[in-house]
């Protein structure tokens, strides 16, 4: 089940990465190698191997519901390319949601 250049183009679009047709064509077989390799791991792990999403088998790491000091508005906005009325200013948004 080889990855197609069209699938690479679609993923690139979803990830907002601009790729040329040629780049998509080149990347498809390269990504396919990675996917195939990962798939081999899945074949090795049988049903006796539990699902693992972290290196440490931790669950329920929580904090108490206590308010801590936040950044000041000036600090929060210090890296913003544009600011207006204490808010981040962003360019026109074309589509809703």
């Amino acid at each position, binding site marked *: 089940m080889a990855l197609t250049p069209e699938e690479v183009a*679609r993923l690139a*679009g*979803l990830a*907002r990465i601009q790729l040329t047709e040629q780049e998509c064509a080149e990347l498809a077989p390269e990504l396919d190698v990675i996917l195939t390799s990962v798939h081999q791991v899945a074949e090795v792990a049988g049903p006796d191997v539990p699902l693992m*999403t*972290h290196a*440490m088998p*931790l*669950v*329920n*790491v*929580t*904090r*108490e*519901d*206590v*308010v*801590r*000091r*936040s*950044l*000041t*508005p000036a600090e*929060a*906005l210090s890296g913003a390319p544009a600011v*207006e*009325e*204490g*808010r*981040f*200013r*962003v*360019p*026109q*948004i074309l*589509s*809703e*949601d």
Partner: protein
Amino acid sequence: MNDEILDFDEVLESYEPALGLEVHVELNTASKMFCGCSTAFGDEPNSNTCPVCLGLPGALPVVNRKAVESAIRIGLALNCQIAPWGRFARKNYFYPDMTKNFQTSQYDEPIAHDGWVEIDVEGETFRVEIERAHMEEDAGKLTHAGSSGRIHGAEYSLIDYNRAGTPLIEIVSRPVLGAGAKAPAVARAYVAHLREMMRALDVSDVRMEQGSLRCDANLSLAPIGSTTLGTRTETKNVNSLRSVERAVTFEMRRQAAVLAGGGSVVQETRHFDEATGTTRSGRPKSDADDYRYFAEPDLVPVAPSAQWVEELRATLPEPPAERRRRLASEWGFDEIAMTTLVNLGALGLVEDTVAAGASPQAARKWWGTELARRSNEAGIGVDELTITPAQVAEVQRMVDEGKLTDKLARQVFDGVLAGEGDPAEVVASRGLEVVSDDGALAAAVDDVIAANPDVADKIRDGKHQAAGALIGQVMKAMRGSADAARVRELIMERLA
């Protein structure tokens, strides 16, 4: 562009609606879902942010324990199964209301799933199946700058990230079938039921106008007798109980017109317009809805033990149905009266008013009629009126003591709602107290009789119904602050 719509009755002749509701509840935790920033509403823009909720590189989220507990309690109240193990997931999308380019949510491992609630609508019980309730975070607030104030035609947008990261619980129902003509009322009653439940659980402020309870209404129509569901639309921005009902009604009428005209319903997001009661097309479902969920690597799984779940179950309030039965019997109200109060969202208000000393009948009268009318006119929930149960009870006490008539009581409500202070202050500042001083009243009665000799003669001749005209004039002279029954007595004494 105006959509064609069909009469509601015509819709029902040919189509059966399927309703699906997604309700977002903002939790009332003091701090955010994954960081210690305050969740206070209305603070200075961008004053409650930190590297975590601004998504700055290297920042690590940590789950708010109370938010998890609230999620579990909500799940239990919805009769759901609580997942013994579940992960958070990244929902990837590009939109500036989130700086991280993803929302931390739950995907295929929601904390609560497979529950149900029962709601009563006009004497009929509907069971709404709950598919899932999951934890996620709210997004920042966008203000669109430009001539329209809306996103279309906006030149740029301004963002306040104070709300970003506020804990949310999303409750997703399964399709509700068979509601027919009651579909809009069922939608409303369901949201009212959840609002009452969240309030009883004390997990959220559930203020729809502030967005702490939000509803997206999914609706599709299928020809009567069909076994498959039609194409659905999802209407967003439905921010009051009344709007839920109106939005569903409008979508039924609009979709029916599309189908009856031989067209097909476009699967899309639509936006509800409060002013016109209509929905307008947002955007079609597309590639952009491919959120590429994957497990959130920065958070460890939530695995509530059976013991923890049982401890939380012990904290649940009385189930709504049992509470209703208990109150109905305590108050001597019938099913219709109770349903009306529940759908109004006034059950707790009446309970608190009774606790503050008013009779159940009086509490129901004010909340169920006078105050309900005002909230309806203002387009807000009755619980959003700026009057407390204690104030309503105080007004009723003054009526019981003969200091106010019902008519004057309404004026006291005007004053309290206008922010003029407590009932006693409004009575004093507006001069609303019933004049029980017979001296002033008697003088007014004498003046009116003297000014209307012909009417007075008729009454002397036994035409007692003519007294109404004189009573009206006396009441007018006293600016309403007289007891009409006493005025009648005084007139009759003089003209006997």
